[in-house]
């Protein structure tokens, strides 16, 4: 077991990736007994910095000091051995194994050569569970646990492996408000025993939990000090470098006709159970309906079915009265359904194709982009140039591979393509995830403009602030059905949180 860490200092860490300066002489100091928040927009360098600390990346310059002595982590094993325990945003748990096996994986060096000693792992899990009040069942297979439970398991695992310092990367991104509060409580208790660093872009949590905060912008530190001294607004301003005026949906919602009507939809998940079980939802022309819910409650299956990529077992999906359930994607696209997918890199664009080729991905087979079997390169070129201007897509030229653009710009390419087709209804799944604030503002503006033009927008998101700011109505999905639909003006964090956890209004 490593010796306790009283103090950890990162001094002047610089890390470069091809074409990007991810960390620029960043310094950070954490002491035992305090929770230190590391804040920054997506792409500001927070995760990179923590990955350097965890031994996953090698810094180009700078060093790490533990209790005053310099250390060099060449591999994650070195960092683990010294007591750095990292809980990643995307869980590092092998889903097909049990909790004990996952812990045993990290304890490999302690086993006798040939026999796998799961008993030892089980005992360790029980010990840590009791000591830190983090209930975890050693023999439960991870894939059966809920997101909140998995996160607890990650914490337990990290502590079992002898962590003397905890780093949590966006720990609350997939939790309901209640689970978030619960987690923050536990972290406060843990902080008494070990230093805790937590990375977040959610300023409310930062204010609630941390004693000190370091703010990164474009890879460099712009502020480091006590949290108590700054208000959320001041922190937000430091975060973005300018005054933040969030885009809000202020216009009165129209009484448009129902454009998208989903009734009693039933969809089976890969694992065999009904992921969507009798879901009914309506989106009218000129309105934004937000879909809130903990991920894993059927959003994925619903989105896929709306795009025509998943068979529907029962119920109907109607767009302007026409039945779309079970139709192939081609027809659904022709009927006027637009889609901004969750995974922009693999579902939204073909990364190796150029920007201009991606902009015609859905329409390439018809005029003006093709004449007979042949492509009309000139038309494609002009179309791309026009969209690039209109949507402010930052790229060297439209012949650049789309995969090389930043997250925000890729999202703009996707939006440009979808919006220029003037869809009747748009399904936007997590459109601002991993996108910096500037691009987020732009995307929100575009969604509101689409709403104003009379289209129906279904916005799936895990950011309650975003949903509350943009939606006319917010539907909460739980276990595959809509539990309730709350008008935007009446939506509060508490009320949505209760619904997301399955508590009926």
């Amino acid at each position, binding site marked *: 077991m490593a010796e306790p860490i009283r103090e950890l200092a990162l001094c002047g860490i610089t890390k470069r990736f091809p074409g990007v300066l991810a960390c620029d002489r960043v310094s950070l100091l954490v002491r035992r007994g305090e929770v230190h928040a590391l804040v920054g927009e997506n792409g500001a360098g927070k995760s990179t910095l923590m990955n350097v600390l965890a031994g996953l990346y090698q810094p180009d310059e700078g060093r790490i000091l533990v209790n005053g002595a310099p250390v060099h982590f060449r591999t994650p094993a070195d*960092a*683990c051995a010294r007591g750095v325990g990292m809980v*990643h945003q995307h869980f590092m*748990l*092998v*889903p097909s194994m049990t909790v004990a096996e*996952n812990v*045993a*994986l990290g304890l*490999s060096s302690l086993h006798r050569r040939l026999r796998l000693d799961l008993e030892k792992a089980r005992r360790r899990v029980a010990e840590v569970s009791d000591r830190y009040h983090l209930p975890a069942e050693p023999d439960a297979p991870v894939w059966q646990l809920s997101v909140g439970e998995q996160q607890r398991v990650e914490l337990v695992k990290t502590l079992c492996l002898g962590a003397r310092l905890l780093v949590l990367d966006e720990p609350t991104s997939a939790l309901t408000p209640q689970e978030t509060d619960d987690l923050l409580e536990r972290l406060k208790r843990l902080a008494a025993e070990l230093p805790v660093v937590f990375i977040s872009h959610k300023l409310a949590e930062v204010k609630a939990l941390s004693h000190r905060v370091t703010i990164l912008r474009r890879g460099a530190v712009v502020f480091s000090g006590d949290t108590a001294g700054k208000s959320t607004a001041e922190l937000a301003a430091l975060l973005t470098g300018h005054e933040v005026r969030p885009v809000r949906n202020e216009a009165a919602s129209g009484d448009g006709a129902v454009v998208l009507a989903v009734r009693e939809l039933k969809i089976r998940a890969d694992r065999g159970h009904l992921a969507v079980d009798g879901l009914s939802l309506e989106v009218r022309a000129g309105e934004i309906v937000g879909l809130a819910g903990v991920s894993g409650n059927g959003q994925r299956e619903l989105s896929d079915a709306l795009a025509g990529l998943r068979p529907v077992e029962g119920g109907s999906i109607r767009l302007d009265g026409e039945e779309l359930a079970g139709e192939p994607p081609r027809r659904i696209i022709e009927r006027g359904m637009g889609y901004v997918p969750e995974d922009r890199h693999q579902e939204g664009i073909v990364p190796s194709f150029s920007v201009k080729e991606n902009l015609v991905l859905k329409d390439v087979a018809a005029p003006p982009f093709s004449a007979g079997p042949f492509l009309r390169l000139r038309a494609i070129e002009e179309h791309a140039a026009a969209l690039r201007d209109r949507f402010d897509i930052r790229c060297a030229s439209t012949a650049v591979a789309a995969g090389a653009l930043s997250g925000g710009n890729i999202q703009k390419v996707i939006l440009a393509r979808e919006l220029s087709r003037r869809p009747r209804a748009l399904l936007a799944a997590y459109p601002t995830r991993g996108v910096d604030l500037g691009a987020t503002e732009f995307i929100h503006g575009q969604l509101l403009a689409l709403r104003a033009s009379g289209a129906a927008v279904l916005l799936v998101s895990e950011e309650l602030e975003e949903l509350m700011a943009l939606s006319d109505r917010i539907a909460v999905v739980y276990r595959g059905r809509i539990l309730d639909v709350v008008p935007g003006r009446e939506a509060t964090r508490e009320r949505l949180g209760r619904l997301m956890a399955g508590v009926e209004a």
Partner: protein
Amino acid sequence: MIHDVLALGVPFSVGLLLAALGENFNQRAGVFNLGCEGVMSVGAFLGFLPSYLFATSPLLPWAPAVGFALAAAVGLCLGLLFALVTVAFRAPQGIAGIGLQMLGWGVAGTIFRHFIGGVVGIPGVAAWPIPVLSRIPFLGDVLFRHDPVVYLAFLFVPASAWLIHRTPWGLRVRAVGTHPRAADTLGIGVARVRTEALALGGAMAGLGGAYLSLCQARMFADDLVAGRGFVAVALVYFGRWSPLGIMGGALLFSLAQALQLALQVAGIKFPYEFAVMLPYALVVIVLALAGRSRMLGPAALGRPYDRETRV
């Protein structure tokens, strides 16, 4: 006739079984090695070589053991070569596998043709009937009257299951094949585990090939392996990455081959070529039936792992 088919089919499956069990380690760790065929070719040649060289020397009784050892050693090296290309260089595994296959095939064929070139028989390995059990009517012939390598190969089925599920190394292999990043953050060297698995897989493919030339055909020819290496890879999918399932698949394939021979011996008129075709067609059918099961396999199978890729 069933008796003959079974008695032949069991030893026929050994070459396949050894190679497939080795490939199972590869795939559990997330890598599929289509070069198995080439490694088996080299193994077959090296298994044959000592018996040929020692033909008139007093060292002849040692020749099979030397052959197996040589085949395993070189197979291990070829596994390491494949690891270099697919793990260290992160090249696409499918094409790299075909490259390795051509290389192995070519090397074995070139050296054989240059130095030997004809059909040369070797004594092979004698059968060791197990004392009491081999006298059981019917089952005795089928199960207990084979050369020692057959017994060892079948013993390796539970042994490899134990290796995968009950040892720390096996735990690491499974983690690396399912969620390499998780393993990496825990300090487990993904590249190292994959290389170890590929080395073991290569050694076993070499052994499988050596069995074919030493014990089964008792000679060597260019096309001795005849696609069994590819069949071995297919068997791993078919057997759902479980040694028992793989054994079942190997027996199925070799029973089909044994059937072909038994039909000929029995004088049943069946065009020779169609009989030879049968096992390959069977593999295609088997693949068709097993196709969807890919979801149950190691989640990271076929994808090179790069720690520094921005997640």
